[in-house]
């Protein structure tokens, strides 16, 4: 009898644990997360709006700045930092305002941003290998964005032919010197400058 009671007790405990966990998840998902997100984005918007008055391309520059920070984290093989910076980049991409561009440019920019946000979000929750996979496509998105928005910065498009089973991978950098974000420490200097922007 005692053992029966004990088994029932354990089962009940397990059931309660499942319950509390799922309840917690539910409440966490609903009000808290979106609220804080919204607030965060709002404050980002404010900041960007202010910068916008001084410089038309402030938003594109902000995206580039976050992109370069992310790239540096990948160069440094720093998974956690890349996660953090991926999330930062995703929110900066999300606050991009294309209204000053022509209709067809706006459409292109919208496509680019949608895609880039998804890759940045994935980077914020993946292991290194995956972060780098997404970074490759993200780099193409950012390069295409710069082709439309332009930038004041001097940027180098660099290319490592060995990444992705020798299909190669390109990235943007502010420095001419090669620091490979796809291999990090393993092959820090693999690659060459493919193109100079500005």
């Amino acid at each position, binding site marked *: 009898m005692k053992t029966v*009671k*004990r088994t*029932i*007790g354990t*089962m*009940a*405990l397990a*059931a*309660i644990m*499942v*319950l509390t966990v*799922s309840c917690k998840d*539910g409440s966490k998902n609903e009000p808290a997360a979106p609220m804080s997100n919204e607030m965060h984005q709002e404050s980002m918007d404010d900041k960007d709006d202010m910068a916008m008055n001084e410089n038309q391309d402030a938003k594109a520059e902000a995206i580039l700045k976050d992109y370069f920070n992310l790239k540096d984290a990948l160069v440094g093989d720093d998974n956690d930092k890349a996660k953090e910076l991926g999330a930062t980049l995703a929110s900066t991409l999300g606050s991009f305002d294309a209204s000053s561009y022509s209709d067809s440019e706006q459409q292109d920019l919208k*496509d*680019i941003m*949608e*895609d880039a946000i*998804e*890759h940045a979000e994935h980077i914020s929750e993946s292991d290194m290998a995956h972060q780098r*996979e997404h970074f490759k*496509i993200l780099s193409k*998105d950012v390069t295409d964005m710069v082709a439309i928005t332009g930038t004041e910065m001097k940027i180098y498009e660099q290319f490592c032919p060995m990444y992705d089973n020798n299909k190669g991978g390109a990235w943007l950098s502010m420095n001419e010197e090669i620091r490979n974000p796809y291999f990090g420490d393993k092959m820090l200097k693999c690659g060459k400058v493919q193109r100079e922007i500005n």
Partner: protein
Amino acid sequence: MKFLKIIAWLSLVGLIVIQFFPITLNESDTVPQSDFMVVNQVPATIKNRLQVSCYDCHSNNTDYPWYSKIQPAAWYLEDHIQEGKDELNFNEWAEYSDRRKNSKLRSIISQIEEDKMPLDSYTLIHRDAILSDEDKRMIIDYMTALKDSLE
């Protein structure tokens, strides 16, 4: 002992109560014009594989298993389906820009190559959703060709 008894009763009551929480079912009678299979010329064998192995979580119509009637399993499923559709919804294929199609195809290919999809927790019960090496090769080849045609 008394304490445990109370807990046992409480959890039993709890389990019964949560059975009355409904979930919104992911079900739809119609296949929209924007569906992957409608937009693309997908060979019948691949069509069938995608339908069985992917569409439960990556479309607007899930073929629900029996345990979807029981909580908290139903919540677990609801979560997974929502997440799956956010990542990729085959029903909305035509609505993705070419750039995003490209990204999606890339992810489909790498997920299958790395055996990440279909999820182990899914194939555990849906044995028919397991992709054989031949299936994988076939799907990857098809998706790669489709991706190349977009570029």
